[in-house]
């Protein structure tokens, strides 16, 4: 399930994927596949020949699909302000005037890779969300 994203969304602005460009993993292969960096809690998406990092806390939900032609599809929906059950209040005030990346979809020649990536993102997302909500509870 996508969950309510509350724990993660609340702290998304404080979570930073990388401090230095060299901390990013090098592309694993020239074809630039979607990569998951568990250590830095980041999803790296190949967009126009470059790997672009997104912290897993910015992700609201992720899903995959497969068609008959052995093609995989993956969709990532990011947290944006103003959606139900996602009171991004602190952030939307802080980042008023920002434009949000809301969704990206990829088509893949490798459906197995897609479902693997989706599982990894879901697991990582759960881990980060539960850690952040524990942290929030301790703080109160």
């Amino acid at each position, binding site marked *: 399930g996508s969950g309510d994203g509350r724990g993660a969304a609340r702290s998304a602005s404080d979570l930073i994927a990388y401090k230095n460009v060299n901390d990013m993993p090098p592309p694993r292969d020239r*074809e630039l596949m979607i990569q998951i960096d568990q250590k830095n809690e980041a999803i790296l998406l190949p967009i126009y020949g470059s790997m672009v990092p997104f912290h897993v806390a910015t992700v609201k939900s992720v899903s995959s699909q497969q068609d008959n032609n052995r093609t995989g599809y993956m969709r990532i929906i990011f947290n944006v302000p103003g959606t139900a059950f996602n009171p991004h209040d602190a952030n939307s005030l802080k980042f008023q005037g920002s434009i949000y990346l809301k969704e990206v979809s990829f088509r893949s020649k490798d459906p197995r890779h897609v479902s693997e990536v989706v599982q990894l993102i879901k697991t990582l997302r759960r881990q980060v969300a539960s850690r952040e909500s524990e942290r929030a509870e301790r703080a109160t």
Partner: protein
Amino acid sequence: MSDGHTFSSILLGGRGGTSPGTFNVSSKKISWTKSGGGGGGGKTIEVDKSDIVNLTWMKVPRTFQLGVRIRDGLVYKFTGFKEQDVTSLTTYFQKNFGKTSEEKQLSISGHNWGEVDLTGNMLSFLVGSKQAFEVSLADVSQTQLQGKNDVVLEFHMDDTTGANEAYGVLAALLGPKDSLIEISFHIPNSNTQYVGDENRP
């Protein structure tokens, strides 16, 4: 080519992925030739110096990326330069093309909120004034407004369909494994810079 420079193992990047080749620069032009036999090996991309609009450098993991924006709005991305190449090429571009290359920074924070900038055919998403990514509007097959606040861009499914010839050549050279097919932006009511006014191809 006594007055030029050659760099091997330079990746040309596009929507679907990257392709290795040799990058060459002379006082008249920039060119790149795909390496290897078959699958487009030997294919060349040439940019005459008069067609260059601007040149940018960006530090990416382990290496540097050169962005060459040409007149019709397309940007070629060449990755695999060393730090000393950046210095020598910057001087070379200045001297031979009369162009000062700008430095861009890659957004590494992993955040999904920022600004959208439209220049030529390219849409850039900037996070904290650093570039997260750039996409070519020449590849957008459809634009939709979803609800009041969301803009959806759909990309051509056929990778060899480019709205301009240069991109068609570029796309044919690259064999994507994971390729971007759709992207959407959420523009809150509080935003004053409205991207919906642009005429998109």
